[in-house]
Structures are given as C-alpha cells and as structure tokens.
C-alpha cells in the first residue's frame, strides 16, 4: 500500500513571462516530514516554494503548467479560494518580518483577518502558537510590547508562531536562518523537528549542513530542474547524480 503524498507536484513548470524558471518538475512530499529543497542561487527553489501557496500569483506575467496537488486537490482549480489556501500553507521568509505592532497583535493578525474576534479564543491561540514556536517563555510577560524590539532569532520564531496561529497543515520556510546566529538557528531547527508532528515542512536551507541536520527527505534543483530527490541520508552521502555530488562537495555553488 502506497501512502498518498501530502503535496504532489506533477509536470509542473513556471514561467516569468517568457523565461521558464521551473522545468516540468515531478515531486512528492509526504505528510509530517521535513522536506528540503536545495540548490545554488537561481535554481528555482524559491519560485517553487512560492508556487506552493500561490504567492507567485502576485508576480505579474506569471504562468504555470502542470499541477500542484495538495491532499489530492489541484491548488489552481477554479473553486480554490486563494486566501484559504494560504492559511493552510504558511510561509516564513528569509528575513524576519515582524509587523509594526505588538507581539500579541502580530500573532493574532492572521486569525483576526479570518474573522476571529473573541478575545479569549485569540489569547489562547497566541499562547499555543508561541509555545509551539518555543518563544512563549521568553515573551509571555511582554505580549503587548512592540514586536520590533525582539532579537533577530526571536523575531523569526515570532514569524513561525504567526503562521501556527492559523493552524496550517504545511509550512514553507525560505532560508529562515540566513540572517541568524548559530544559537538562534539551533533553536529554530529544534522547533521544526518538534513541529513536524503537526505539520508538513518544506524547507529551503541556507546551506547544505542545515538540510543534513533536519531534513527527512530532500530534492536537489539546478536551473529549474529537479535533478534528484530521495531520503536525505542517502542524498547527502551517496547521491546518484554527479551534479548533486558536485554541488554538495562544493565543486560549484
């Protein structure tokens, strides 16, 4: 019996106008795993990530071919409500982007847009999300102070908590620790390992060491093509494709 993938990408191509950024990719990502998409700059990893929550819709002249199926449903279907999709599939960006409001308001932002008004419910969600993001203990006494005063690592965990308050099924992280020190990075990596019990995680690491540390499965992309994919341990030790081993050993970057 084969397990249905959480995310199924079938013959997917992405075009910015006439430039083809992603070349007919096929990929399966399973529920409750950490999947790492990696590759050199401009390989299409960010583009693919952003296609998963259709943030790519915001780019003018964006065009897609093929399918992305989440739980079997094509996310480009006519009756898919994009705003709903984005609540199910949350995203953390490369730099921590706290909104200019209090910690509480940051985390309550998503639920409030959804229509949640009940103060008790909001408070509960905020606490829960902060605990899952391993930030609660550090900020529980100053929930109503400005989020801009947090350190870089704390801000990024805030961004993680912000998504979690919507109860997503999938989390997309684009080089989340690129701007952070090693200690903050470790904290976030630990929280991701804990979080995968609840969500499916697709991560673009800022270096291959991070992927080696946290990923269950991984996929190597080069110039828009999915070169190789499979269990992380195998991919990073005995990759099948030369290009993969060249990249991992640093022959090119």
């Amino acid at each position, binding site marked *: 019996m084969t397990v249905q993938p959480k995310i199924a990408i079938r013959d997917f191509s992405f075009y910015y106008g006439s430039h083809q950024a992603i070349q007919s990719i096929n990929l399966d990502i399973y529920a409750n795993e950490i999947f790492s998409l990696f590759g050199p700059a401009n390989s299409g990893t960010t583009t693919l990530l952003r296609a998963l929550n259709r*943030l790519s819709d915001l780019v003018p002249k964006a065009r897609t071919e093929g399918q992305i199926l989440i739980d079997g449903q094509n996310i480009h279907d006519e009756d898919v409500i994009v*705003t709903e999709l984005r609540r199910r599939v949350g995203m953390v*960006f490369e730099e921590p982007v706290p909104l200019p*409001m209090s910690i509480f308001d940051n985390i309550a*932002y998503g639920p409030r847009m959804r229509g949640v008004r009940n103060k008790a419910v909001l408070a509960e969600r905020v606490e829960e999300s902060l605990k899952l993001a391993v930030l609660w203990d550090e900020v529980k006494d100053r929930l109503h102070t*400005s989020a801009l005063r947090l350190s870089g690592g704390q801000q990024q965990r805030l961004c993680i908590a912000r998504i979690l308050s*919507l109860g997503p099924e999938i989390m997309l992280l684009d080089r989340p620790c690129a701007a952070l020190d090693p200690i903050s990075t470790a904290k976030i990596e630990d929280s991701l390992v804990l979080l995968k019990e609840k969500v499916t995680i697709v991560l673009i690491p800022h270096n291959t060491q991070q992927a080696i540390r946290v990923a269950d499965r991984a996929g190597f992309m080069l110039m828009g093509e999915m070169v190789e994919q499979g269990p992380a341990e195998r991919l990073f030790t005995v990759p099948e494709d030369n290009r993969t081993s060249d990249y991992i050993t640093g022959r090119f970057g």
Partner: protein
Amino acid sequence: MRLNPKTTQALAKAVIWGSALLVIVLLLFILLFVLIKGVPTLSWQFLTENPRDMGRSGGIFSTIVSTILVTLVSVAIATPFGVGTALYLTEFTREGLATRIIRFSADTLAAIPSIVYGLFGFIFFVINLNMGWSILSGGLTMAMMILPTIIRTSEEAILAIHPLYREVSFSLGGTKMQTILGAVLPSALRGIMTGVILSIGRCVAETAAVILTAGSSLRLPESVFSPARTMAVHFYILVREGISMERAYGTAAALIILILIINVGANMLINRFVAKNH
C-alpha cells in the same frame, strides 16, 4: 587677481555660513516682530470674545472658530481623496498612462496660484453651486488646494514601508483590502499624518482663496453654510483698512503661535510614532 584655493575656501565658507545665518535671522526677525508686538494683546478675553464694531474693539473668537471650521472641512474632504489616490497609485496599478495623468494633475494643481483658486471657488462653489460665501465653499476650495500635498506625502509614506509587509499579510491569507487596511495603512500612518498636518498649516495661513469663498462676515458661524472670516483674512482686513493696529498685531501673533504649535506638534508626533514602533 588670482586668489589661492585656501583663500577662496575661507571666503566661500564665510559667505555660505553668512547666508545660512541670514535665513535664520530673517526668520527670527519676522517671528519676533509679530510676537513682541502682538503677544501683549493676547489675553483670554481677546481670544474668547467676538469682534465688535467691525473689529475696532473686542476679540477674535469668531475668527478662531471660523479658521478651525474651514480647516476641518478642507482636511476632512481632502484626506480620503488624497490617501485614496496614493493607494491607487501604489497598490492597484503600475506606472503607465493613468499614473502619469494623475501625477501631472496633482503637480499642476500644486502650482496654481491661490488667487486663482479663489476665483474658481467663487464662480463654482459660491455662485454656480449656490453655496454662497460659506465655510463649505471655503473648505471645498481649500481641499482642492491641499489635495496634491496629501497625495504626494501619502504616496511617499506608503512606498517607504517594509517591502515584505504586504507579502506577509498575503501569505497569512489576507485579501488585498485586508492587507491595505491591516498592514499598509498602519505602517504608513506616520508619514500620512505629516502630510495632513502640513496641510492644516497651509489652511490656517491661507488668505486669498478664503476671502473670495468664505467671505468676511465677522459673525460667529452657525453651520458650515454660514459665511465666515478666518484669522488670516481678519488680519489682512484690519491692516488694509487701518482699523486697529493693536488687534491686527494680536491676530497675527495668535496666527503665528497656532502655526508654531502645528509645526512643533507635527514633529513631536512623528518622533513619538517612531519611538512607539521601534
């Protein structure tokens, strides 16, 4: 006569510092002139009593009320249109023919002399729309005058927000309007308010456009349809007709103090917003 570079540097430096000093001196000269001659007239009574005998005696209360009302009307009308226009330019469209036309219109409006606004306001609001000389006519005319400023400063403020704020809001499932109301506007609020406050100062100081549209009645205005005389207009009339130099100075001092409060208040507000969010 060739001077060596060191000499020209010293000379130039002196002249340049002198020029800056001149600007400061002129400012102080004008401010102190008005304040020194006018503050003695400023008393609680002066500010809360209505003018009597065509302004020969009494205070300036009705003019203060008129100034506030005209300013209020004009800001209340111009701000939604100005901010809305800025939002259109930044959120709903890319640079193209439409944006060029809008910007050209705004820039041109900014260049039109206030007396021409007065002529327009008179023929359009006062006569054609039959609003008569009134706070409404004056306010609407002034709204057109301050519209370009609000558009420009709002657009600048909106463009200055963190480029990822919008993305964050969208990625949390926000619609365009939710993003504008929840992320864009709150972040740009400080800059937008600066523009609004600048415009308040402009309304308070304006004379030519107001005298032709709001009239010069000294009575306390009863509604936005009443004619009204603002402080600046009152000052002008007192001086032109030689009615009462003492009260003219008093009015001017009150005007200057109001403008100083607006300027200082604006700067303080900006700094407090900065402090709160950082």
